[in-house]
C-alpha cells in the first residue's frame, strides 16, 4: 500500500460529500410522511453510534486497513473471506450508485435518447481517472467540491426563502400519526442510508494523518450531514407538502423548480442536478476505492493495476442490475435493510467484541493494561 496521507478536514469533506451522494436528492424517510426530518435526525444519532464502532477499530489499529485487521481478529482464512465479501459488497454498491446517478441524471436532465451506458461510462471514467491519481487527489477534489456545494446550498436557501414558497403549515401537525411511522422509517431506511454506508470509510481511515482528529472529523461529518439532510427534507415538505414529496422521484429537484423570484431567478433546478452529480461522484469513488484497496491487499496486486478492470466490472454490473428505476429502487430498498445491516452493523459489532476480548486476554498475559491501539498493534 502506498503511503498517502490526508488531513482530517479532507477526510471530513469526503465523508460529507459521500453522504450527500444520492441521499440529498432522493426520498428520505418516506414512511414518516411529513415527519421525515425527525426520522433523519434520529438516524443521524444512531449513525454516529455505528460510526463509533468503526472508529473504535480504527483507534485500535490506526495503521491497518480493514482487511488487515479482519485477518488479525478473525484468523487468516476467515478474515480474508470477510475482506473478500466486503470487497464484493463495495463493488456491488458502487455499481448500484452508478445506476442511481445515471438514472437520476437521465431523468432530471430529460435525456431521452442518450443510452444509460454512455452516462454511466462518462461517470465511471471520471471516477477511475481520479482514483488513478490517488486518494490524495480525491481528497483535495473533495475540499473544492465541498466549497461548491456549500455555495449552492447557501444560494438555494436564499432563493427559496425569498421566493416565498415555504408554507410551514404543511409541516403541522408534528408526529400526527404517532411515533411508529418514524421508527419504521428510521429502522428501514434512515440508519442505513446514508449513515450505515459509512462502513466503507474504514478503507480510508489509515490514510488520515491524525487518528484522534480523524475520528472527530468523521463524527462531525455525520452530524453536519444529518442536520443538513433533515433541514432539506423539512424545506422540501414545507414547499411541496408531504403527499407530493412522497410521490416525487426527486423531491429536491421538484422543489427547486418552484423557485421563482420576480420572473428573473427561475429554473434553478440545474443546481440540484449539479449537487446530484457531485454527490454521486464521491459516493462511487469511495466505494470503488474501498473495493480496490481491499482487493489489492487480498490478492497482493498493486491497486492501480486493478482500477480499469474494476471499472469495467462496475460498468457492466450497472447495466445488468436493473431494468427500470422502480425495480432498482425496490431491490435497493430490500437490500438496504436486509443484507446491508449485517455488514454495516453486525460485523463491526462482532469485531469490536472480539477486539475487546483479545485486549483483555493480552492485557492479562502481559500483566499491564495497554492503552487502546498500542496493545493489539504490538501484538501483531
Amino acid at each position, binding site marked *: 500500500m502506498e503511503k498517502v496521507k490526508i488531513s482530517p478536514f479532507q477526510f471530513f469533506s469526503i465523508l460529507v460529500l459521500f453522504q450527500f451522494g444520492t441521499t440529498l436528492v432522493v426520498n428520505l424517510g418516506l414512511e414518516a410522511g411529513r415527519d421525515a426530518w425527525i426520522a433523519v435526525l434520529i438516524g443521524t444519532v444512531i449513525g454516529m453510534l455505528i460510526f463509533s464502532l468503526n472508529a473504535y477499530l480504527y483507534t485500535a489499529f490506526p495503521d491497518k486497513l480493514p482487511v488487515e485487521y479482519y485477518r488479525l481478529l478473525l484468523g487468516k482464512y476467515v478474515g480474508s473471506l470477510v475482506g473478500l465479501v466486503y470487497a464484493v459488497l463495495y463493488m456491488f454498491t458502487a455499481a448500484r450508485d452508478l445506476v442511481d446517478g445515471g438514472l437520476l441524471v437521465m431523468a*432530471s436532465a430529460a435525456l431521452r435518447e442518450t443510452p444509460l451506458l*454512455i452516462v454511466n461510462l462518462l461517470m465511471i471514467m471520471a471516477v477511475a481517472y481520479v482514483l488513478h491519481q490517488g486518494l490524495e487527489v480525491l481528497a483535495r477534489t473533495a475540499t473544492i467540491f465541498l466549497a461548491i456545494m456549500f455555495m449552492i446550498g447557501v444560494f438555494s436557501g436564499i432563493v427559496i426563502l425569498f421566493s416565498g414558497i415555504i408554507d410551514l403549515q404543511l409541516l403541522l401537525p408534528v408526529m400526527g400519526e404517532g411515533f411508529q411511522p418514524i421508527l419504521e422509517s428510521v429502522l428501514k431506511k434512515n440508519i442505513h442510508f446514508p449513515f450505515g454506508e459509512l462502513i466503507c470509510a474504514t478503507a480510508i481511515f489509515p490514510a488520515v494523518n491524525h487518528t484522534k482528529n480523524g475520528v472527530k472529523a468523521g463524527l462531525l461529518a455525520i452530524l453536519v450531514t444529518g442536520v443538513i439532510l433533515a433541514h432539506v427534507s423539512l424545506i422540501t415538505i414545507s414547499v411541496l407538502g408531504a403527499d407530493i414529496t412522497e410521490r416525487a422521484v426527486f423531491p429536491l429537484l421538484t422543489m427547486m423548480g418552484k423557485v421563482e423570484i420576480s420572473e428573473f431567478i*427561475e429554473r434553478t433546478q440545474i443546481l440540484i442536478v449539479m449537487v446530484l452529480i457531485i454527490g454521486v461522484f464521491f459516493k462511487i469513488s469511495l466505494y470503488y476505492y474501498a473495493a480496490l484497496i481491499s482487493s489489492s491487499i487480498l490478492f497482493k496486486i498493486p491497486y492501480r493495476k486493478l482500477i480499469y478492470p474494476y471499472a469495467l466490472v462496475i460498468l457492466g454490473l450497472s447495466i445488468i442490475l436493473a431494468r427500470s428505476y422502480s425495480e432498482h429502487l425496490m431491490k435497493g430498498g430490500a437490500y438496504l435493510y436486509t443484507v446491508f445491516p449485517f455488514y454495516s452493523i453486525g460485523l463491526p459489532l462482532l469485531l469490536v467484541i472480539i477486539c475487546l476480548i483479545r485486549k483483555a486476554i493480552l492485557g492479562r498475559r502481559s500483566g499491564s493494561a495497554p492503552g487502546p491501539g498500542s496493545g493489539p498493534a504490538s501484538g501483531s
Partner: protein
Amino acid sequence: MRKHQGLTILIMCCCLGLLSGCWDVVELNKRAIVSGIGVDWKEEEKEYLVSFQTVIADEISGKAGRGATPTSVYKASGKSVVEAMRNASRKVPRIISLAHTGLIVISDRVAREGIIDLFDYLDRDSDIRLNAEVLIATQGQTAEDVVSAMTPIGKITAFALEQKIDLTSGQLGENFRIEVDDVIRGLLTPGGGPLVNGVMIEGSAEKASKMETLKNAKVEGLAVISQMAVFKGDRLVSWLNADESRGTVWIRNKMKITPIHLKLLDQGGEISLEVMRSKTRLLADLEDPANPIIHIHVEPNFSIREVNSAIDLRNPATMKLLEDAASREVIRIMELAVRKSKKVNSDILGFGQAVERSDPSAWRKMKNRWDQLFPRVQVKYHVKPVIRNSQMRDRSVLYKIHNQ
C-alpha cells in the same frame, strides 16, 4: 512522456467527442416554445382537444417580424395530452417544448368531468414545472378561446394572464395564485377539492383572437380573470361569486388588499375602507368530537379611502364605531364563503387541516366521514379590526359643510 505523445493526442481527440455536448441536444431553432396550454373536450370523439399557444419568436424580437400575431395556436386532439402533443407534430414544424408553459387553461366542461388524469400528467411531466398557473374557462367558453386571445399590453396572452392574476390577487383579493401543485394538494384534501381561478373572454371571443382588435383603443375581446371555481374531489361543482371568493381568500389567509364598503345607519353616510394587511388563523375546538367548532381569527388592518359622511374622523369613538361596522362586514363576507362551501360540501377553506393540526388522532378517526361532518361544522368568527389611518385627510368636506 515523449514516447506516449501520439497516444496522448489520440486519447485527447477521443475525449473531444465526448465533450461536445449533450446527446439529446435540441437547438432553439428546432423548438416551438409553448407558453400556454388549453384543454377542451370533444364530445363526439370523447377526446381532449388540446390547444398549444406557441410563441413566435420572430414577431416578439421585432426585427424579422412579418407583422403577424406574436403567438399562434395549434390544436390537436387525443385521449391524453401526450397523445395530442404527438398528433400536433403533423401541424407544427418544430418540437413542441413545454418547459416554458406558464398557463394551463381547462374548460368548464372538462373540469366537470374530472381533472385527475390531466393533473397526473402535469405533475409527472419533466418539462412542465409545478409553477404553471391553472385557470378554468368560464361556462360556455372554451379554453381554446382563452389561449387564442390577443393581449394589448405585453405580447403573450399566457404570460399576461399570469400577471393579471398576481395583480388582481394583490389589489382586489378575490383570487390568489393557484399553481399545479396547489391543485394537487387540493385534490388530496379529504372531503374537499381544489380551488381554481376562473378566466373568461370579455366581449367577443372571435374578435379577441384577431390582430385587428389591438388596433382599436377599445379592445373588442379580452381575457380577464373571473371568480374562483370550486371542486369537490376532482370535479368542478360550482363557481363562487365575488363576495364568496373574497371570503374564501380571507379564510385561506391569502388576503392582501381589498376594498370594503360600509353603509352607516344613523348618519346615513357611506364609507369605503380598504384592507391593507390581514392575518387569518383557523383553530379547531374538538371538545365534542361529533360537532367540531372552527374558530376563525382575523386581524385586518384598514385604511379609510373614501368618506361620504359627516362623521368626525378625529374622534376615537367614531373609529370604534367604524371598526365595529367593518368587523360585521368582514364576518358577513366570510359567512357567505362558509355557507357556499357547506352547500357544495367541499372543504375548500382548510377546516380539515385545522382539525388535523389541533388534534391529529381525532382527525384520523373523523377523516373518512369528514364529508358528513363538514356541513354541520359550527364556525365562530373573531375579528379584531384596526383602522390604521385615513390617508392624507381626517375630517371630510361633508363634515365641514354640516358643522358650519
